[in-house]
């Protein structure tokens, strides 16, 4: 009986430790992605920049794309319905640098005015 109790106790402890580790990983991952998203957001500057060149409409978010030199899609910010920037892409290099919290948008901390995004989408002809 004692042996079984000890085993049960060890299992509960192990699961509790795993919960702590899992939550720590979740926070750390979210913080890292938010940092990268914020960096790309800074590179974009004002949303209504003259370099705004294209859009993307997907069910889970809408994206604004900004031109740099010859690259029409150099910088991209993807914003969900709540105004959270859930994905940002920097395509200025050979390989796109992607920061994303698509899987966990509730932990995205970089925000923009959704109404402003919609206005710019309309300006680009995305929303009729």
């Amino acid at each position, binding site marked *: 009986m004692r042996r079984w109790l000890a085993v049960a106790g060890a299992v509960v402890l192990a699961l509790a430790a795993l*919960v702590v580790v899992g939550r720590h990983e979740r926070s750390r991952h979210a913080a890292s992605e938010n940092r990268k998203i914020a960096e790309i957001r800074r590179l974009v500057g004002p949303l209504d920049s003259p370099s705004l060149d294209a859009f993307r409409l997907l069910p889970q978010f809408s994206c604004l794309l900004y031109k740099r030199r010859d690259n029409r899609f150099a910088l991209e910010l993807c914003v969900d319905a709540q105004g959270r920037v859930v994905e940002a892409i920097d395509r200025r290099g050979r390989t796109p640098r992607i920061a994303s919290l*698509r899987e966990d948008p509730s932990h995205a901390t970089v925000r923009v005015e959704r109404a402003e995004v919609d206005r710019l989408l309309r300006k680009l*002809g995305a929303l009729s």
Partner: protein
Amino acid sequence: MPRRRPRAGPFVALGAFVTLALVSSAWSARTGWTERRSGALLLLAVAGSALAAATAARPEAVRRILEALVAAAAIVALLGLYLLWVSHEQAVQSASVQYPARYRGIGQNPNTVPLLLALAVPLTLWLWTEARARSRKALVAGALLLFDGSIVASGSRGALIAALAGAIVWVVTLRRPWRLRLALLAAAATVFAADVAITQIPKPLSPAAVHGASGPHRVVKDAELVVPLEDELGRPGKGAPPIRRTLFGTSGRARAWDGALHQIARRPVAGFGFGTEQFAFVDRYYGFDSSVPENSYLGVALQLGVVGLAALLILLGALAAVAVRALRTLTGRALAAAQACASVVVAGVVLGLTQSYLTSPGNLASSTFWIAALCLPALAAENV
């Protein structure tokens, strides 16, 4: 008469895996999804365990279960043919520049139903040897032909390989003279080679047939029409020929698996939470067309980290140990049923290398795999 109970090892391992799935809602990226999916997994585990408990040391009862699995697969395959008759467009995925036309039957995509049929192939081989009446043998042979034909028409290479793996295990474990087993292995290899050759007959569309006349150059504002997010990585340069599916190509899976490994490394120990595979994995890979990495082991590592992957491998190992014990100690019809179940397990494990399905309770093949796998500890039951 002594009471018998199924071997405990696999059930302890299964309980540990299901517990991990349930507890992962505490750190999940999508708590609601994790709760629902882990709940469904729990139901599947309970159902499979209950069947095993009810059929402990009762090979005839296990036989009925396996027959039912084959019958279910046959119904799915026949429904596919019916859909082909009623609506060709629904039953067949049109050809593209990358893929030839592929049969999908009632499946969501051409790989869906072949998952189930690949697991049904070794069970059908077993049923054929068990059948005594000629009419029954003919019926089972017809089912085998239906399964093989459906897999070939779908062009699913993973399912073909898995079916072959299951057939090989079944043949190798037969208690027959080695010459006969060698001949059967040669026959299986020949059928496999013929199947592969047939899958190469339909061709993808030529790029010239797809590109219409080019009009005046227009600046397209919708980036999704120019560089879709799901085709961003590995995109060929301008003027390069499009990727076409080849016999030994991975259909973009190699890049997708590399991407999945990088994503796993972001939350390596505990993962993103059970049931979040299609959220944690994002298809950005040119030539790859799926919302999941199409590898059950990477899928589990994404969901439950290395801890979850280890738990799954321990579970499969426990099943393998019970299978080996059963094959060594059982005789007669119990042995024949154990051979069939072991073949399904091997086919399923191989299939997991190219398809994300093993821990998806709603998937057609997942329940077939686990029900057949949990019959093994039932067949190898020990005295209480």
